[in-house]
């Protein structure tokens, strides 16, 4: 009897997360705030374009018109079809390879000594300088571009995963051992879930770096896809189209990262959903 009374009393403290979103002021609505922020940005862009800041700087409205035009004539779709192939391939390979390698290095000393220094150097190096070298070895095809994506994306994914696995909560490991968890169960049920926030931070940085890699490759290796579209419109002084292309890839990169965060919270850390 007494037990239930006490726990009911404590349950009062659980209500706090849900009451927070119920407050009335419009400034507390995150979606509204974001829309205001975007509108403000577009407004400043429009004003700056009208001054104009530079003859090569289109207004926001011109850029939107150019964007619709690029969508309508299919050139944006064609460009993305060719850009997305090395990008998706490179990012997916980097994600699996990076998380795998990082986990192995975190669990196994010898692997750590063999692999981690390479990635520390790679992360410190101005990696764009490798891209002409990649072209020299692998030519100008899909392989070279995929490699360009991976060179940029892989180090941060490997290093973050390695650090997260290495710094896993010691007391949970002991708990798993005391309840007779096997090595595999420990990795799958304790180490990876515990490391997932830091692993996902690495994945987000890695995916963003992959976008840098693919655009660099298309600007430096072979003019195809989005890189080609940017170069082409610049050469014809179609600045509105050029800006529309650049803005589209920024938007795509942002949406990908938001999606990744959604997957993380949904699948790996359900407890942070309400908090």
């Amino acid at each position, binding site marked *: 009897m*007494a*037990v*239930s009374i*006490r*726990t009911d009393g*404590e*349950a009062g*403290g*659980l209500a706090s*997360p849900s009451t927070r979103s119920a407050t009335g002021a419009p400034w507390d609505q995150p979606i509204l705030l974001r829309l205001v922020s975007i509108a403000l940005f577009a407004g400043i862009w429009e004003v700056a374009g009208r001054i104009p800041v530079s003859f090569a700087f289109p207004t926001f409205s011109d850029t939107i018109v150019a964007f619709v035009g690029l969508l309508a004539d299919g050139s944006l779709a064609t460009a993305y079809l060719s850009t997305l192939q090395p990008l998706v391939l490179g990012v997916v390979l980097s994600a699996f390879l990076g998380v795998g390698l990082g986990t192995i290095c975190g669990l196994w000393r010898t692997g750590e000594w063999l692999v981690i220094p390479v990635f520390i150097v790679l992360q410190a190096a101005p990696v764009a300088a490798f891209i002409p070298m990649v072209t020299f070895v692998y030519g100008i095809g899909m392989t070279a571009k995929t490699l360009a994506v991976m060179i940029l994306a892989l180090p941060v994914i490997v290093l973050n995963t390695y650090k997260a696995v290495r710094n896993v909560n010691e*007391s*949970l490991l*002991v*708990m*798993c*051992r*005391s*309840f*007779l*968890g*096997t090595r595999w*169960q420990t990795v799958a*049920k*304790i180490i990876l*879930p*515990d490391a*997932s926030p830091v692993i996902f931070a690495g994945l987000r940085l890695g995916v963003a770096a992959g976008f840098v890699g693919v655009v660099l490759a298309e600007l430096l290796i072979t003019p195809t896809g989005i890189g080609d579209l940017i170069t082409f419109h610049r050469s014809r002084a179609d600045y509105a189209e050029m800006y529309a292309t650049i803005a589209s890839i920024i938007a795509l990169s942002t949406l990908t990262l938001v999606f990744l965060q959604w997957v993380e919270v949904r699948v*790996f*850390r*359900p*407890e942070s959903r309400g*908090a």
Partner: protein
Amino acid sequence: MGATALRNGPSPVPAPIDSIVEVRGISKTYGNVEALRGIDLDFPRGKLTSLLGPSGCGKTTLLKIIAGLIRADGGTVAINGKHVTAPGPERAFVFQDFALMPWATVMRNVAFGLELRGTNKAEREEIARRYIAEVGLAGFEDKYPHQLSGGMRQRVGLARALSVDADVLLLDEPFSAVDEQNRRKFQEDLIRLRTNQNKTFIFVTHSIEEAVYISDRIVLLSPRPGRVSQIIEPEIDRSGDPERIHRDRHYLDTVEEIWQGLKQYVE
């Protein structure tokens, strides 16, 4: 008391104490610090034994050696007559820092021991639900640890240890991270649990009052190196109102007696 009487009934010869855990000559050294030296102890079946002593007496080390989480440098631990050096299904541990998975619900945390053993989901959740209710957390099955108070989190840790149906429960200062009011409540619940669950408890604490309040048997350890200095069996009637124990003459005398014995180790 009941168990002893029962054993004496059928056999005319006084039976030896039925010990479930036997510790023989355990020693452990960390670097050049001798944590434990030559510990010999028997833990009677179905009783609650406390390991009590000032910090540095190696009580947690001894508990973790019994749990198989730390290797001893010398000596043996036997559970039900079988030597052990690693964790086993007949022992379950309750951690000082709770050791709950923050990404898992109360239900999954409590069922985790069974999940690791490959019990199917329906069965393990049924068992877990029963023990969640047993520790007074019914209705909190779908909450996450960060939504619970310290006392409630440790109840989850206790339910997890109960649900694997081990013979011996090892509790490492389970109330030290729990506030005073919840600790009192929890101690009362533990006394109740002990009578319901026919299990052996080994309980590490640095609180004299706590040890005397809940234990059938108190093992006093002295520090540097950790050795058994005294074994006390407080004869306190715990059948009635648990509140009354705090005013019990014998309870107060035992607390005082232990304090007089431990005083010399406190600077």
